[in-house]
């Protein structure tokens, strides 16, 4: 019952008693999710925004201090700068490298080879293993004296570094570890690869294109939506890295793996500065938001949707 040809709005949704009843039923059915979402996600988000303007130890009432946390953060905290640098370094390397490796592996896993499901499972396994278990496993793999990595390097005559004990190698070690765990991204690329119409490859064959040209001209451009998705997701995840640093290095050596998330955790739970930690959290949100915005804006140039 639209009047004056305007767009349908909420009033129209509830204009009849039957529709009203449907709306009420619908809301009741999703109410568990709404309640949970409001209590466990929405409320904490706004609470932490409030706390970021307070001095809050968690065991006393929060005390309003305005922008003090933010000014301390920007001008008087060297660990903020160190942890931000470490996190940016890690993100800048692990995300692109992760994309390159996972696309390459997805291409290999898309060939018609015997037992392909087995290979796909093997590559997916790391991403469903708990991060804590992976961290402990990699601590041993990277052990300078007895670890597999250095043992294999020794076989070909290279004396491997102290992966987690040398400040110069600690971050690269964690980056290596993250590339090993890109199973989820591979699965998404596989799905994306299935979406590419076979006729394009056949047409290219007819035109005499080599495999490399097919990959360059057909596969990669049509895979860009998946790459775009994984780069955003990967970036957001990389900015929040915590577990590996917490378990494997404790932020060391020499604060080379003091990641932003770890520093935030310390402020919240060790230094009685939940307010300051909240401010750190919101700064991270702004940074991640801006970076995502950048990637979104640039996507017009390199992401190809449709045919």
């Amino acid at each position, binding site marked *: 019952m639209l009047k004056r040809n305007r767009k349908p709005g909420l009033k129209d949704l509830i204009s009849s008693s039957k529709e009203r009843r449907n709306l009420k*039923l619908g809301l*009741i059915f999703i109410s568990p999710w709404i309640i949970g979402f409001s209590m466990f996600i929405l409320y904490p988000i706004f609470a932490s925004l409030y706390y970021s303007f307070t*001095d809050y*130890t*968690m*065991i*006393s009432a929060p*005390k309003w201090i305005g922008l003090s946390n933010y000014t301390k953060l920007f001008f008087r905290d060297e660990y903020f700068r160190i942890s931000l640098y470490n996190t940016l370094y890690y993100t800048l390397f692990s995300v692109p490298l992760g994309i390159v490796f996972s696309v390459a592996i997805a291409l290999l896993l898309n060939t018609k080879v015997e037992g392909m499901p087995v290979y796909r499972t093997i590559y997916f396994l790391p991403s469903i293993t708990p991060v804590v278990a992976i961290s402990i496993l990699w*601590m041993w793999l990277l*052990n*300078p*004296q*007895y670890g597999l990595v250095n043992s294999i390097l020794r076989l070909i005559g290279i*004396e491997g570094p*102290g992966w*987690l*004990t*040398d*400040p110069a190698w600690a971050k690269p070690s964690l980056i290596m570890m993250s590339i090993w765990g890109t199973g989820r991204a591979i699965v998404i690329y596989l799905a994306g690869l299935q979406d590419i119409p076979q006729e394009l490859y056949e047409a290219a064959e007819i035109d005499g294109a080599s495999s490399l040209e097919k990959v360059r001209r057909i596969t990669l451009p049509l895979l860009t939506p998946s790459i775009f998705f994984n780069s955003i997701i990967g970036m957001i995840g990389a900015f929040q890295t915590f577990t590996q640093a917490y378990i494997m290095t404790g932020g*060391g*050596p*020499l*604060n080379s793996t003091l990641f932003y998330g770890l520093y935030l955790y*310390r402020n919240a*739970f*060790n*230094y*009685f500065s939940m307010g300051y930690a909240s401010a750190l959290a919101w700064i991270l949100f702004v940074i991640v938001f801006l970076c995502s915005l950048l990637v979104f804006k640039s996507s017009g140039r390199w992401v190809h949707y449709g045919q």
Partner: protein
Amino acid sequence: MSILRKFLSVLVLCTIFSVLFSSFTFGEEVVVTYWEKWVGRDIDAVKVMVDAFNKRYTGKIRVEVLSTTNINEKTLTAIAGGNPPDVAGIWPEDIPQFAIQGAVVPLDDFIKEAKINKADYYPGTWSYFEYRGHIWGLPSTNRTPALYYNADLFKEVGLNPDRPPKTLEELDKYNDKLTKIGPKGEIIRMGYVPWYRYPGPWGLGRIFGGGDFDPEKNKWILDEGYEKAFSWALTYAKKFGYKNILDFQASFGATAGADEPFLMNRVAIEYDTPFRIGWIKLYKPKLNLRLYPFYPQVPGGPTNYCFQYADALIIPKNAKHPKEAWEFIKYYNSREGQLLMNIGSSQLPVLKELANSSDFLKKSTLAPYTKVFVTGMNQKKVITTPKSPNQRKFETWINDAFQEVLYERKSPKDALDELRTKLQNDLDELLARFK
């Protein structure tokens, strides 16, 4: 509509019942929740003492022990969430902060009523709980380290197994003999690793005669004693290569476990607390262990001293049953409770008389090393960790400074100057917050 009504009414009924049921207690028995940081055999020993308490208070109080890792963080979160345990066995470093913010129940009145006497306790152990004129908890057990060494390894390199290193110079010499380097220059065994286990960078500074913190003036000191300590540690890093030692340490197992390096003969000398005896007896009973009550003497450093640490028992604010929690803590600190507790866990009593009694010497599972630890503990000069509100930051930052010295990024003097300034600025800011 009727189906929906039925569903909703069942849901409401279930909610009412579960709320009613959860607040219903059987009889008058009060359940006291006790979170403790220990694991494995250490927590089993506590349970023996808890069982004795529960038997004595059957029908009235029942204590439930929960082994809790990261206990300080979890207790803090639980207090913030309004659902803390009744008794928390925290590390005492956070007590000043908890005290300033009223997160802990002060025990002054309880202690006075129970006629608990400070003079009965080891003075260092008691001191962790006094802050700003009140008493914020009581100790569960005492910790005093002693020098462990492996007699078989001594014999192997031609050292007298009955002669521990008694001076710093001897320690250095013994380490040179005991350290074994492999064909490719990798360290296979070290005599002594100056930064592994006790006393750590803070303790080393004190051993070298340094001052750490002045609680009256709220001033961080960290003077020449600390410089000397850091310089001495640096000699080890330079002689063997800090990266080599770190590579060597990378394969150390957990401190409470079967693959701890001393148990694995990878380290010949270790300064550690009595709990290690229990683990050695469990996993490496054949280890030819010797003990000496003192850290090798440093020229110019304190003499006839001991470190006294403590494990803490506090009653968090908003604990549901503070009175019953206090009954448990009182028993924990009684002669009987301390005896039961420290026998099984191979730890040390907090009561002076008990530690020196034939009861304890006969029954303690620290035998035959009990006397060694008690001798150490009885020393008049006592060293305790600094009681500063920014103790946590101190622990992190002094380790950072120590590492910067060992990696040769900064000289000991520069590292300590920066550390002192940073700590002081942070403390001043913190104190201003809580004025």
